[in-house]
């Protein structure tokens, strides 16, 4: 299951679908809006996607993960729009007969999602600035909008 949604993510629903007698292991990853980045404070993150392509890329990642590891379930759900502090922007669930595969696939999926899938976040800083985050290698280009 691949999903882009403006609603809060529902990891319990994803987990329930992944739990089955074929699975011995389920791994869930949640990416959360964190308050502090170094000493800067975030109020909220805002996510935007090139939706048709993001869904296609997420399907591609899911298919590649299912080829590389023996998975009994794989679901990725990404939230768009405002994601308040402490709430999840992304949920990835994978299940497999053995735990090594579930951990490896889960980690690969989030690492690769962050490299490939056309979704962007905008920081809304506590100091009033907003900033689109465009990582360039170790650096990040930040398109700042001083309000």
């Amino acid at each position: 299951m691949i999903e882009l949604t403006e609603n809060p993510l529902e990891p319990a629903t994803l987990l329930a679908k992944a739990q089955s007698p074929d699975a011995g292991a389920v791994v869930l990853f949640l990416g959360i809006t964190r308050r502090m980045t170094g000493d800067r404070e975030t109020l909220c993150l805002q996510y935007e996607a090139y939706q048709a392509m993001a869904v296609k890329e997420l399907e591609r990642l899911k298919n590649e993960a299912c080829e590389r590891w023996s998975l009994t379930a794989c679901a990725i759900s990404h939230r768009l729009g405002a994601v308040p502090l402490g709430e999840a922007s992304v949920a990835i669930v994978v299940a497999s007969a053995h735990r090594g595969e579930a951990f490896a696939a889960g980690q690969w999926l989030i690492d690769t999602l962050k490299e490939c899938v056309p979704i962007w976040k905008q920081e809304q800083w506590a100091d009033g600035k907003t900033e689109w985050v465009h990582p360039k290698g170790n650096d990040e280009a930040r398109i700042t909008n001083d309000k």
Partner: protein
Amino acid sequence: MRVYVKLFAGARELVGQESVALELPASATVGLLRERLTEAHPELRSLANHAMFAIEATYCDNETPIPENAEIACIPPVSGG
């Protein structure tokens, strides 16, 4: 030919539009598109150098030729997750 390039996130914000129109020769590649885009919108130069481009929602490289009437998007470095 006339192409429309979708813009997202910082690129959209820099230009102030969700897409831009460009006039390209019929045999244009993505590399030429990248050049013309930054000539027409110099404010995009720094970001466009690091951006990927997608044709019909698939990543492509500078050598890829641009078909007529294709959906083209500028994909600045992503930060989802």
